[in-house]
Each structure stands twice: as C-alpha cells, then as structure tokens.
C-alpha cells in the first residue's frame, strides 16, 4: 500500500509567526519557533516532519504565501 | 471637409469631443453645461466612433471614472459647472499626482456655494492655483467664442497627452449658452488599442508576460521619493510655461492702457475697447487663451513698449488681477474691474471703468 509523505518549506524570514498554519495542521506537524527572525517574528517550522502528508492546509491558510508544499507517494 | 454650423458653446464642445476622437465622457448634469451631455447622448457616438457616454451618479464618480479610463491610456473627459467641479477637486489632484492626461471642462457659474446659474469667472483661483491639494498645475484653456469651445477641446487633449497632465477648459455660462458660427474640424478617428499601447506605454491595459507591470498611483509614501516626483512635476510645469503660453492681442501696438480679460469678459472688453477708441483713448486688449501658463512675458513686453497700466476685467472680485500684478512686477499700474455673482459687466460699464482708470 502506498503511503503519502509530505514536507513543507517555510520562508522563515518572510513568515510573520501568526500561527494559523499551526492550527490548520491536523497532524501537529508545525510549531512556532522559539527564535525570532530578522523581522522579530517567531516563524513556523516542521516540528514533526514525519507526520506531514502534504495536504496543503497550512499553505492554504497562510496569509503571507510563505509555505511551499511537497508530496510523494512512498511504496512500501 | 470642415463644416460650418451655428451652435451653442456647450454643443460645439461636445461635437468637438466626438470629432477629436475622445474615448469616453463621464458626467453629471448641472446648469449651465447640461447641454454637453445632452448633446452627446443624443449624438450617441457609441454607435459611430465608439465613444462611451455615461451619466455617472455624481461628479465625484465622474472624475474618478475619468481617472480610471485615463489610467488605461484612453482619452477621457468630464464636464461640469462650479459646484460640481468643487466636488471633483480630490480626483483632479489624484490625476495630477498620477500624471494622467484628461480634460475637465468647467462652465463657470456664480458662487460661492450653490450661487447662481449665470456666467461667472470666480473659479480662476481654484483652477490655476490648485483647487485640490498638493503642488500641481492644470493646463488651463479659456475659450472666448464658440469656435474656441470646439478648437480648445482638441487642443486640450493634445496638450494633456503631450505632457501627461490634466487640462481644464475654463469656460463660463455665457460662452456655453451662446450660439455662434463655428467651423468644425474634420473628425479624427479614435486611436486603436494598439496605438494607445504605443502612445501610452505607462497605461494599465493588462501586463504582458515578461514585461514590467504598470501601476497608476499618486501614493509615494517616502518624503524624499515624493520630493523627487515633485521636482519632476515642477520641471514639466516649467517646460509648459516656456512653450505653451497662448494669447491674443488686439490694438495693443499704440496702446497706453491695456485691458486684460479672458472668456466672455474678453468679448465685452473688446467692445469696450472699440468704444474707448471712438472716444480717443488709446486702449488695447490682451486676451489670455491659456490662464496657466499665464502670458506674463506678454505683459512684460507691453510694459517695455510703453503701456502705463493694465485693467484686469473679470467676472469676479479680482482673481486674475493678482497674476497681472505679478507679471507687471511694479512696472505699471494694475487694477481690477468686474461684477460678481453672475452679473455681466456690459461694454459701457467697462468703458466707464476704463475712463476712470486711465485718468
């Protein structure tokens, strides 16, 4: 059975740390960083990358269009 | 072939707009210029030249419709009378700030406020000294005949596009309502969209892939950027001042005194000059056809030729007289004569004022 694996790349300097993606993710993949970026925001990052399915919910809700989503089918 | 007709000033202007290949007229009715839109609606140029004629919900909307169409590179115009033009000032300032070419016609009536519907020239300051906010200038044409109502329509657009600057035709109720013989120029076809794109590369007509987007805006936000833009505007204005002054001089060659008057005041003054000459007064007439740029050099020249005084005749409390004084710069006596609120000074009234002035 094919398993779907996903990943996101977040432009951390453009992320404003609003946290909407964190809430939108059903698999708790994302969290806000403890560290601030150059603009003083705490950007989101993949805390639990292995849970990501590439569903694009985070990118869909992101107001700043800073998330790129990747998805592959992994054959077991 | 040009065509001879008897027309009202307002009608001649409207017909000239169609013939000049104007793309769009947006307006709102107000006396004494409603004939402009009435004429256009009746002529229905949408069927012939494709010119759009739309009655907007307000003057505020009209001028902003003009902004939109002008920003897309089209020849767009509106017309109104004093109270309506006051409402348009915001839009005019934006258009000047976005450097868009368009034509606004003001068939001036008596004010302030709702005032009267009779002819007046009390909107001179509003037109040539700003009106809206910010350092900007309107190229201002002052027709004094029905013929000029037609001719200046085309000229106004030519100048507006040449300099990417809004132009105003500052007329008045008398010129708008009177009928005279007019020789209409041959129709010019409306520019094709390709021609618009070629002439106005800055126009927002849809960004072609691989090219820079175009933005029409007057917002610059950063003071230094705004100043840089203001300097550019001022340089443009300087060029217009140098190249685009238009005026007519009548019987000025041997004149000791000169009336300065535009629009319908120039017509009544012309007759006053005739009367004065019959009475042995050496009087001439300087008729500015452009109010901005103002014919300051012409006044200087007249002073050098020995003119002792200038009487600014206006249907206002004295507005253009300030520009005459600035141009004379103390070199000659300058006074104002005029009636207000829509009252027209008759040729004999002007002659009496002239007699007193020349003493």
């Amino acid at each position, binding site marked *: 059975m094919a398993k779907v694996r996903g990943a996101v790349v977040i432009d951390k300097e453009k992320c404003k740390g609003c946290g909407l993606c964190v809430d939108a993710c059903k698999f708790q993949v994302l969290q806000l960083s403890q560290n601030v970026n150059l603009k003083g925001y705490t950007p989101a990052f993949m805390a639990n990358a292995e849970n990501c399915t590439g569903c694009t919910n985070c990118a869909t809700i992101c107001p700043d269009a800073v998330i790129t989503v990747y998805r592959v089918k992994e054959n077991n | 072939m040009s065509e001879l007709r008897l027309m009202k000033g307002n009608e001649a202007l409207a017909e000239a707009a169609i013939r000049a290949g104007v793309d769009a007229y947006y307006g709102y009715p107000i006396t004494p210029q409603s004939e402009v839109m009435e004429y256009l609606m009746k002529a229905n140029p949408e069927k012939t030249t494709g010119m759009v004629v739309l009655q907007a919900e307000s003057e505020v909307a009209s001028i902003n419709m003009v902004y939109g169409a002008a920003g897309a590179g089209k020849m767009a115009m509106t017309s109104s009378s004093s109270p309506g033009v006051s409402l348009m000032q915001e839009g005019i300032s934006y258009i000047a700030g976005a450097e868009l070419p368009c034509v606004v016609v003001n068939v001036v009536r008596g004010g302030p406020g709702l005032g009267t519907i009779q002819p007046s020239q009390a909107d001179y300051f509003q037109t040539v000294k700003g009106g809206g906010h910010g350092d900007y200038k309107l190229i201002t044409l002052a027709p004094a005949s029905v013929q000029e109502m037609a001719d200046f329509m085309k000229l106004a657009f030519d100048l507006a596009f040449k300099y990417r600057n809004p132009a105003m035709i500052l007329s008045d109720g008398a010129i708008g309502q009177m009928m005279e013989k007019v020789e209409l120029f041959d129709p010019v076809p409306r520019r094709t969209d390709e021609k618009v794109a070629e002439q106005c590369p800055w126009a927002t007509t849809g960004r072609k892939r691989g090219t820079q987007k175009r933005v029409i805006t007057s917002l610059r936000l950063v003071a230094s950027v705004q100043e840089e833009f203001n300097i550019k505007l001022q340089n443009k204005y300087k060029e217009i001042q140098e190249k685009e002054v238009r005026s007519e001089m009548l019987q000025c060659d041997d004149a000791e005194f000169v009336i300065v008057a535009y629009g319908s005041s120039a017509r*009544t003054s012309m007759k*006053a000059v005739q009367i004065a000459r019959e009475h042995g007064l050496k009087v001439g007439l300087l008729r500015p056809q452009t109010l901005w740029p103002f014919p300051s050099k012409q006044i200087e020249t007249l002073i050098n030729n020995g003119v002792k005084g200038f009487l600014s005749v206006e249907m206002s409390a004295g507005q253009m007289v300030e520009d005459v004084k600035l141009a004379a710069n103390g070199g000659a006596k300058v006074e104002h004569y005029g009636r207000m609120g829509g009252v027209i000074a008759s*040729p004999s009234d002007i002659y009496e004022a002239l007699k007193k002035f020349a003493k």
Partner: protein
Amino acid sequence: MINEEIIIAGFGGQGVLSMGKILAYSGLMNGLEVSWMPSYGPEMRGGTANVTVILSEERISSPILTSYDTAIILNQQSLDKFENAVKPGGILIYDPSGISNPPTRHDLNVFSVEATKAANERNMSKIFNMIVLGGYLKVNPVVSLEHIEAGLKKSLPERHHNLIPANIEGLKLGASLIQRENFYKAAC
C-alpha cells in the same frame, strides 16, 4: 455695412429664442458673422425670455449688449425693460396684443405687427414668431427670404421640414401686416 444688434423679448413659449435662432442661421447662410445670446435659467421658465442676436460683416466683439439697433418686443414687461435700450434712430417693433402702454419714444422708428391676432384668426399659433420676423425683415431686409429658407432648413429638425412652407407663409403675412406707428425719419 451690416452690423445689426437686435434684442428679441417676450414670454417663454412665444418662440422668442427660436425666432432669434432662425434669424441667426439665416445670417450665417448670408455669409455674416452671427451671435445668439439668450437669457437663460429660471427666469426663462414662466417668465420673460429674451435673446440678443447680432448680425455683422465684421468679427463680433461682445455678444452681450446694453443698447440695440432693433428691439422686437412681444409683451409689456419686455417693452418696459427694453424701450430705453434702443439706440436713438433705431427700430422698435411690437405686437399690440398684450401691450397696454405703447412705446412713447419719439426718436425711434416704431412699428407694430398684429401677429397674435393674425395667428389666432388663421389658427396658426405655431408660426406666430414667423409673422413677427416677417414684419421685421420687411422693415430691415438684413437677410433675404432665400437665406431664411436655408436657415429654417438648418435650424429645424428634418421631421419638421414639412412646416417650412407654413413658416414662409407666416413671414409673408408679417411683411404685409407691419405698420409704421410714427414718422421718425432719421437714418436707421
């Protein structure tokens, strides 16, 4: 040399403005410079209407005047307003119906034309103004009948061109009806 400054004044609805327009158009057809300056606005509605028409061989200076070569007067208010504005030796034409105090100046050429009466008798109220105009042109043939006909063609919409013969008839009728009221003989 032609330089005729005319005021036409009466009630709104008497055809004052259109009479002026036909006259101006006829002047144009005759190769003259012309101007037509109406009083406009609220005073037009229900009140008096007037129009200044100038026909000239030269460039016209002021379309707005305070004295006239000719006054064509169609009601009492207009007579009161404009009788004194006619230049000495000028022409004053009036329709006696509705005039209770006839003109009194002796330095004018005064004429009357019973246009209202004539139009009513013939059931031709529409051409009332043409009767008056016909009277004026008889006194001062500043334009010819042929120019008037051309002027009518230009100033009337095409759907009304069938009315031109009636208008011409009105002009002729006016010419036959106009009467001199005094015998002032100075040049006019």
